[in-house]
């Protein structure tokens, strides 16, 4: 079954896809999402709607995704395993599809100790891999995780994340292959600053045949300050920020401009790597940087023509 999402069409046509990120607010205000959507509209083929990102309670990704659809932009709804069990997940998956959401990104989720409710219970009934397989079976068999039939299947283009910088390194491409076996159609990577290591990871993915079965979008993010570069290097789990990037940001006169330059250079380099089908630009709380990055990188959304 083809889910029929714009992102799917762009990638199936072999066009270079561009996705961005839109974080829902820590409030019930839909205007925040409408404003961000209007900045990103026309620039991205689809935008990720994060799900209680870094374990901070926010407006749910399904509602925010629906608001984004109403603005004429295609959402990629994120779903983590941290906050719900398989019952709630399947309910949300059916509901999301019924609302017209066509892309679902399946994640394990950051541990709750990172967020603003560290005393909460982490659910983790499933992990990202078993979540992916459940969504795939809901769409294609179609059946619930328990094996019961679904009469009207959720048509979803299924995605996942991959982190080339986590350990053990030799297992990262294999773990992505597991996600492909489980049923993903596309994946977005962790933010890339160390391009050499990413290239090595991509080489392994090509060798394993992953790139033939799954579209890989390279994750990038503009650094907004020297402090952010340092913070990402030292404090964010699963990041690899080379010293030269931190130093370059520290030495910059116009740091935001330099952050965009670094991002554009990384896009230029990852585009040349075999198997890269697009980029995922994560300009969190700096959505206005996305059009600028794309213009400097000479990028257009694959769906823009």
């Amino acid at each position, binding site marked *: 079954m083809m889910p029929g999402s714009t992102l799917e069409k762009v990638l199936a046509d072999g066009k270079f896809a561009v996705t961005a990120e839109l974080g829902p607010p820590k409030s019930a205000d839909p205007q925040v999402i409408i404003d961000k959507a209007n900045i990103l509209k026309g620039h991205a083929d689809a935008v990720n709607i994060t799900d209680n990102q870094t374990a901070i309670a926010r407006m749910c990704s399904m509602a925010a995704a629906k608001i984004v659809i109403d603005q004429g932009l295609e959402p990629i709804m994120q779903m983590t395993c941290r906050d719900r069990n398989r019952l709630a997940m399947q309910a949300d998956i059916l509901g999301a599809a019924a609302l017209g959401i066509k892309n679902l990104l399946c994640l394990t989720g950051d541990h709750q100790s990172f967020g603003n409710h560290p005393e909460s219970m982490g659910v983790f009934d499933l992990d990202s891999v078993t979540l992916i397989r459940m969504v795939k079976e809901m769409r294609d068999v179609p059946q619930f995780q328990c094996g019961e039939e679904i009469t009207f299947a959720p048509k979803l283009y299924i995605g996942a994340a991959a982190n080339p910088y986590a350990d053990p390194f030799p297992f990262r491409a*294999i773990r992505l292959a597991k996600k492909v076996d489980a049923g993903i159609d596309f994946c977005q990577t*962790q933010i890339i600053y160390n391009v050499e290591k990413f290239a090595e990871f991509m080489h392994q993915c090509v060798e394993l045949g992953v790139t033939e079965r799954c579209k890989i979008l390279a994750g990038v993010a503009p650094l907004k300050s020297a402090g952010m570069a340092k913070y990402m290097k030292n404090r964010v*789990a699963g990041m690899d920020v080379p010293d030269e990037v931190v130093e370059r940001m520290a030495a910059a006169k116009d740091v935001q401009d330099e952050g965009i330059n670094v991002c554009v250079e990384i896009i230029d380099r990852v585009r040349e790597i075999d198997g890269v089908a697009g980029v995922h630009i994560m300009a969190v709380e700096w959505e206005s940087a996305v059009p600028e990055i794309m213009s400097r990188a000479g990028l257009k959304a694959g769906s823009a023509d």
Partner: protein
Amino acid sequence: MITAERKPFEQIKAVTDQFENILVVGCNTCVAVCLTGGEREAELLTAQLRLQREKDGISGTVNTVTVLRQCENEFVDAVAAQADGKDLILSTACSIGPQLIAERIPKVRVAPAMNTNMLAVVKKHHVWSEYCVACGDCVIFSTGGICPIARCAKQLLNGPCGGSQGGHCEISPEVPCVWQLIYDKLAAFGLEGNLSRIDGPKNWSKSNSGGPRTMKKEGFEP
């Protein structure tokens, strides 16, 4: 073994201050091995309570007795006589102890002096680490003899997640990534390829999530 840590004295005192005659009951098995609730610790707590209560002008008595195991009827029943005339039994066992005491000696109020924390091994002197959560469906043959349910912060069956770096878990550099340990262990047997297999979803109905569990040994019913 089961490990338990003593509650802060202030919390214990907030309960004991409401009672006159108190019996502190120690347990000489797991909590004695982890040096928190055996005979010695029960006596220490008793002495501490006596001093505090004398200072605060609270009348009554504080006595102590220690049994071999508070998780078995016969040992708990043996202290029933000493509970006569007491207003409170304060147990220094894991939570099983005060619960069984409450069941077997129903006339007396019971309070825990401990917080029960885990099924653990003695990692080194005075350090215990959680190895089991009693999930009811052991998987460790396929994970190199290492439990991902008890020892992975996200209970992953298909780890390691993207937060594993330098052998550490994303939650703390103090916490080893158990999936790195599993990978290394399987690799030592040349079996890391096994990790390409998708495991799960887990059947949580065999765990406490399925409701309180009872184990019966067939053919031995009374």
